[in-house]
């Protein structure tokens, strides 16, 4: 019976999906843009004055010598064929545009058909030259003949009729080798810079693997199979585990792994911005756009969130005194969606360019043909998988916290980290599904040709009757996106509360107000998202309301900062690495919070929106807030997870380098932004070169300083001192079990006593 009704239900679902798909409005094509040709538009878009897209039926040809000698003058012939009524002569037949990477192009003497506009170095037809499909001109070879010269040629085949309809154009590039030029090996063509890096890292990884396995085979005299079997024995429990402690560590390690990958991308961004570069000097602009898209997406969804979920996975059952999460298998599934979803997102790199739509994926660029394909589709698909992963995790945490608290752990006695996750869970459950829906609509737009976000109807140029709404995406995205940034900052608040209280040797000041502050931030986070849209031309009342609510976030956040400081006052402060990290976080997060208030003010936001000021702000919040807090968290809970203490000296060196060079890298970004440098710019005003070089150098040192952390983790895991159950004298229940905790987390379910009972 049950099976039969399920079958009927699924058939019903299928039919309704099919009906829905067939009911989608579909588009007939993109509106034709009509503008007069100019040099820069031709170079950027081709002859889109006549037709938006090139046509392959038009054949552009340039007669070139076999190679060239330095300084020699050559006469070249440009010819187009194909296109509308392929006529050899007549009126208004075509036009051309040609540019050479080296050497000088000149019209023939007394030639009235070809002109070189003043101050330009390209050639094009004159009005008279419009009546031909073949033009001659000269080219003076450059002084050195060991280069390869590229000619960019555009030919327009015109049908002679009035207007631009029925005209077709095409472009081609031609290479001419100097007699002394060395031909570049074919293999080096077609590999983009990120691909080279990925292949490079893959080769390094494979080599390392061979070396490690080979070393084992030689020193232990094992066969290849035996070595692999040994590793498999070690790997198998990690691949099949449903234990919250194992999954927690998997999450944390995966999060940090993606963090390092995205960190490398961040350094690639900084190298591109080391000086104002032209397209292709280091990265092409398209590659740069993919790089910052992947950097942002990876850092938020695949580094910050997994690290948080990892700590929550490990600590929630320990802090509330239960043996595991409510749904261990679901937990494993949410974990495994993360690396797989991440790989799907990165697939773009192997298919001609990763997604290049920014982490915000604004439409209509994201639905437009000019966004990378299929890189952006991979980006959308992977995001949906990560969204599913977070939603499942949220359900797991919620159920666990609601139903599985040990005796004595009432709501108002939960540790503040658990409280922060409890609030975060609601944000996840209310925000992520909205994002998932938006992504599915985006996918429909991209693949089925629907028109949810695409901009305007076919043929509708100035948009008097807009059929679809590009702003809708921003509403959906930021309804999710703003709670998302609280999803990554609230758990950091939880970590800070734990660390500061423990190392001040005192209970947290104002526990109740901390809980209410977090809850208030959670509620307000859903009504502030419009502050990302102050310049879109939204309703002034809407903008005023979100300005006010955004400002209000400062109140509960201020309460938290003041409570932490009051916790320290009157305490007995132990300055170990976790505490130093926590205090550093309070400083950087305060700066990030203050710039947040500045950005909340609409007039100032209009000046700062989408400039580096915003980049500085959110790096202060996300790196200076979330990352630093969780690095402190690693130093704090590492003894619990491994039973070994982390090395203090290395920890303090790591902190000093991170804190100094983080500020050196990101503080000047405020100034760069005030000077007007927009974010997502692959090149910039040369006046800002010095500042950008300073930022880049500091960012590299900040990046490499994280290797100290990796080494510290490795070193302490191998050689660290024994930790004992409660090395920091913390109070919450995770310190009441052994380090590392036993297989079932607690040998018997503990009871949380109140201070009065314990006395």
């Amino acid at each position, binding site marked *: 019976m049950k099976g039969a009704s399920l079958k009927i239900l699924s058939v019903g679902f299928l039919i309704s999906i099919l009906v829905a798909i067939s009911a989608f409005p579909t588009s007939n094509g993109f509106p034709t843009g009509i503008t007069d040709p*100019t040099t820069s538009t031709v170079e950027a878009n081709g002859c889109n004055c006549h037709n938006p897209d090139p046509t392959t039926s038009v054949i552009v040809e340039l007669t070139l010598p076999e190679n060239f000698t330095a300084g020699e003058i050559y006469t070249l012939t440009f010819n187009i064929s194909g296109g509308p009524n392929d006529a050899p002569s007549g009126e208004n037949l075509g036009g051309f545009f040609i540019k050479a990477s080296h050497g000088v192009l000149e019209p023939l003497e007394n030639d009235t058909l070809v002109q070189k506009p003043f101050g330009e170095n390209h050639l094009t037809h004159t009005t008279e030259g419009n009546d031909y499909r073949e033009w001659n001109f000269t080219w003076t070879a450059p002084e050195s003949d060991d280069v390869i010269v590229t000619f960019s040629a555009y030919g327009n085949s015109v049908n002679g009729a009035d207007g631009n309809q029925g005209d077709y154009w095409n472009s081609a590039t031609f290479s001419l080798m100097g007699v002394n030029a060395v031909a570049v090996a074919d293999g080096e063509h077609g590999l983009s810079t990120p691909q080279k890096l990925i292949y490079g890292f893959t080769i390094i990884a494979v080599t390392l693997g061979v070396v490690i396995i080979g070393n084992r085979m030689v020193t232990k005299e094992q066969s290849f199979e035996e070595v692999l079997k040994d590793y498999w024995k070690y790997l198998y429990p990690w691949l099949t585990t449903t234990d919250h402690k194992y999954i927690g560590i998997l999450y944390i390690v995966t999060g940090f792994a993606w963090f390092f990958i995205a960190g490398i991308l961040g350094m690639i961004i900084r190298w591109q911005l080391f000086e104002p570069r032209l397209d292709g000097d280091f990265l092409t602009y398209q590659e740069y756009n993919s790089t910052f898209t992947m950097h942002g997406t990876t850092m938020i969804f695949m580094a910050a969130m997994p690290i948080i979920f990892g700590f929550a996975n490990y600590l929630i059952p320990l802090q509330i005194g239960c043996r595991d999460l409510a749904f261990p298998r679901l937990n494993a599934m949410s974990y495994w969606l993360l690396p797989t979803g991440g790989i799907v997102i990165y697939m773009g790199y192997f298919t001609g360019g990763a997604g290049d739509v920014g982490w915000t994926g604004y439409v209509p660029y994201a639905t437009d043909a000019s966004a990378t394909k299929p890189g952006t589709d991979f980006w959308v698909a992977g995001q949906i998988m990560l969204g599913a992963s977070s939603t499942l995790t949220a359900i797991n945490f919620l159920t666990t916290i609601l139903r599985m608290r040990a005796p004595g752990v009432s709501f108002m006695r939960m540790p503040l980290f658990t409280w922060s996750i409890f609030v975060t869970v609601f944000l996840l459950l209310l925000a992520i599904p909205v994002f998932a829906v938006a992504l599915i609509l985006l996918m429909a737009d991209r693949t089925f040709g629907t028109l949810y976000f695409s901009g*305007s109807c076919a043929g509708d140029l100035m948009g008097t009757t807009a059929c679809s709404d590009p702003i809708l995406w921003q509403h959906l995205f930021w309804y999710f996106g703003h709670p998302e940034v609280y999803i990554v900052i609230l758990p950091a608040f939880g970590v800070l509360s734990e660390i500061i209280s423990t190392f001040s040797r005192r209970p947290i000041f104002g526990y109740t107000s901390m809980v209410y502050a977090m809850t208030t931030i959670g509620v307000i986070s859903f009504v502030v998202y419009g502050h990302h849209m102050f310049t879109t031309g939204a309703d002034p009342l809407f903008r005023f309301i979100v300005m006010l609510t955004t400002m209000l976030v400062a109140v509960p956040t201020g309460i938290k900062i003041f409570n932490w400081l009051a916790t320290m006052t009157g305490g007995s402060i132990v300055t170990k690495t976790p505490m130093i990290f926590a205090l550093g976080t309070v*400083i950087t997060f*305060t700066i990030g919070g203050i710039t947040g208030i500045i950005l909340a003010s609409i007039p100032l936001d209009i000046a700062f929106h989408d400039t580096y000021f915003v980049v500085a702000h959110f790096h202060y919040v996300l790196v200076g807030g979330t990352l630093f807090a969780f690095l402190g968290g690693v130093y704090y809970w590492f003894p619990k997870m491994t039973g070994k203490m982390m090395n203090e000296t290395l920890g303090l060196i790591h902190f000093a380098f991170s804190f100094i060079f983080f500020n050196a890298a990101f503080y000047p970004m405020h100034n760069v932004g005030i*000077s007007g440098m927009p974010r997502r710019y692959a090149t910039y005003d040369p006046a800002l070169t010095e500042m950008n070089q300073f930022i880049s150098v500091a960012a590299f040192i900040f990046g490499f300083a994280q290797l100290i952390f990796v080494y510290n983790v490795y070193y302490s895991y191998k050689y660290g001192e024994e930790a004992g159950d409660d090395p920091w004298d913390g109070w919450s229940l995770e310190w009441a079990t052994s380090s590392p905790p036993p297989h079932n987390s607690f040998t018997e379910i503990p009871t949380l006593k*109140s201070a009065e009972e314990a006395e």
Partner: protein
Amino acid sequence: MSLLEDILISDNPSIWHDFGGTSPGYAGITWQMMIWSIITGLLVFIWMGYNLIMFKHKEGDPEHKDALKAGVFPHERGSPKIEIAWTVAPLILVIWLTYISLAPLDYLWDVPDEDETDLVVDVVASQWTWTFTLPDDYVIPEDFTNCGKFNETGVRQQNERTTYDCIEIPHGGIIRFNIYAEDVLHAFYIVEIGVKQDAVPGIETLAWIDTSDVKPGLYSIYCTEYCGDEHSMMLADVYITED
């Protein structure tokens, strides 16, 4: 030294001075924000420094009655009076900051109607060009040549009605920009004047400046909404010229 200066002082006239266009009073908010930021920041940093100096743990400190013990929920610490104080004080501060943000908005959002303006410019943003079109009934002054084409002798000719990546507007008048996007989102940003407005396909958006508040000269227009490969090259010049 200049790098240090750059880091300490950011000179964008649209932010630090009472500057023209749509940003009168930016300077007022900027200074207030600056002062309150410094006060808040110093409060946190000094309090933290004080704590670290006065309450540092010393070997042999006696065990405090409130000290934490594993498995025991500690005594509640706190003082409602102090907590209410630092809830209300920031509340008043942010309401004040919201209030002072409103004055420039009254001006900014009061976009003049077309008949109240001296010039209406149609701005069309497309990948990756700015196209400016002046109204048909506008007489382009003869000495407006900054966006004109070169003739054979290399001298710029008078501006045409439609110009690309360049626009010349008269000093001393209210100029309104009607902004359209042809393909994807763009944003119209005059850096030194502090005007920023998204260009959205299918929707006409508006920006305006009063050029009598601005010194004549050359200003830059950037595209500030990510629009694809050549985003960072989608620049334009705006000349404000005296008649």
